[in-house]
């Protein structure tokens, strides 16, 4: 298929269609409205259905019903809307239902603002809703990746019977880049889901539930979920840029900030500074071992985020005090420029390690 120039939001929508997803439930919120807008036009063309729910709470419960019936389905929202979905997401995780949830983050807390942010990292990777659960969290840095990771998200959701989150921000959602869709799957080609509630004809009924009133049973359920989350470690993924010569400063960033950092690094390298990038692609599971190894080859680490320092906690845990870790963040919807980030690196490089 030829490359098309698309917004990140539209590319996510088309990737869902190409993945055989035919159901979307959601409620409008900036800066991700292009996703529901796209799905509302596109899904009817392929025999699917777009439902504008009465609220995000309702949308997350509609996902529960559709996923329980064995259908590929997804929703998208932005930070305040994702908070409203948290109850439903906890139930989806408890009932082990495969869904894809897209969060195009905007600045918070509360209603905050509509401009880009990465301040939902902790909510996405550490639970967010109640109970011991995890989502797989994938963080695209380009529009092409937004499409590729959305396609993979549906497969991973099915593989682990678990909610998968695409964590982007307003910049990834609104930006246009060339994109191609590398796969195409029809819903009929998807693997069977023998656990789904499809009408118990000629078989015993299936039950999809997250309620375990006996503590012994719930403990076994929690332990099984824990084993599943550990098994997800197999999906861990990261990318490095210009780290081959053991950089003096290793920038750790994901999503939008990671691509801004690439520009900073190119400019700093022209000035003769040894700077590289470590970019987690999966935020849960976190590439802890790979980051620790990369950090140990650097003199210092600089974590850069559009937050007050959320991923910073995972970086500190990975580096475990063996290399100095500094932080630079912009918040409130402000996005750091490549020059601004480069200045921070230059300041750090001047400090004796």
């Amino acid at each position, binding site marked *: 298929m030829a490359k098309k120039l698309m917004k990140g939001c539209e590319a996510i929508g088309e990737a869902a269609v190409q993945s055989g997803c035919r159901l979307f439930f959601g409620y409008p919120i900036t800066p991700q409205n292009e996703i529901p807008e796209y799905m509302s036009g596109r899904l009817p063309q392929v025999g699917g259905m777009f439902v504008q729910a009465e609220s995000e709470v309702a949308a997350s419960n509609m996902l529960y019903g559709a996923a329980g019936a064995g259908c590929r389905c997804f929703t998208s929202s932005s930070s305040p809307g994702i908070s409203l979905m948290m109850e439903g997401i906890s139930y989806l995780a408890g009932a082990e239902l495969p869904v894809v949830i897209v969060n195009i983050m905007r600045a918070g807390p509360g209603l905050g603002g509509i401009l880009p942010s990465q301040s939902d990292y902790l909510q996405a990777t550490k639970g967010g809703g109640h109970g011991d659960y995890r989502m797989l969290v994938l963080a695209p840095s380009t529009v092409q990746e937004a499409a590729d990771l959305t396609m993979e998200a549906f497969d991973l959701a099915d593989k682990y019977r678990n909610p998968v989150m695409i964590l982007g921000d307003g910049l990834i959602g*609104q930006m246009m*880049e060339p994109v191609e869709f590398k796969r195409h799957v029809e819903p009929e080609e998807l693997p069977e889901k023998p656990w789904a509630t499809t009408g118990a004809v000629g078989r015993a009924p299936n039950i999809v539930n997250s309620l375990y009133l006996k503590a012994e049973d719930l403990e076994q359920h929690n332990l099984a979920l824990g084993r599943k989350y550990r098994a997800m470690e197999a999906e861990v993924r990261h990318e490095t840029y210009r780290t081959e010569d053991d950089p003096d400063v290793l920038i750790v960033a994901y999503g939008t900030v990671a691509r801004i950092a690439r520009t900073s*690094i190119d400019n700093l390298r022209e000035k003769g500074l040894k700077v590289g990038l470590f970019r987690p692609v999966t935020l849960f599971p976190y590439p802890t071992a790979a980051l620790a190894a990369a950090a140990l080859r650097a003199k210092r680490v600089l974590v850069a985020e559009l937050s007050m320092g959320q991923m910073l906690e995972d970086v500190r845990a990975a580096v475990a005090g063996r290399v100095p870790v500094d932080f630079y963040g912009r918040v409130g919807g402000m996005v750091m420029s490549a020059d601004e980030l480069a200045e921070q690196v230059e300041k750090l490089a001047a400090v004796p390690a």
Partner: protein
Amino acid sequence: MHNELILAGFGGQGVLLIGKLLAYAGMKAGLEVTWMPAYGPEMRGGTCNCTVVLSDRRVGSPVTNRPHGAVVLNLQSIDKFEPLVRPGGILVVNTSLINRPAVRTDITVVPVAANQIAQEAGNAKAANMVALGAFLGASGLVSPDLVRDVLAETFAGRQKIVQLNQVCLSKGYDIGQACAPAMAGR
């Protein structure tokens, strides 16, 4: 080749559209491209801009505070973006709506009466296309033929619109070419 460009004006002047056309034409020319609107609570009559990056390598930051070129269609935009253009860069100024000259002397300034030229060609709404043409003429970044193709694709079946816009693009291109220097970083 790596160029970061800002296109700015009032909401409704079509700066997002010419940015998209430029990015699309760049893609057809085999370049890596990004188009990023400054999104916010904007509305018709408010200010509006987008950043287009054209590069022969993977694009890092899709936003810039040091553009290689800028196209400004109204006064607020020249006030905001003229100081940011890199030395040696290009500034296309819509003199129909901007009543002051550019002050920079270390960049190439391309004055173009975009609204007036578009009006004479049939519709002042195509002023954005005159300005885009002027930028292409001055910078030589992307062939105007590619932009003409992209216009024909974007407005397929609306022959009058395609024709008007192509005429305006060419008129702007000639003016830009007359001012053309070599662009910084090319």
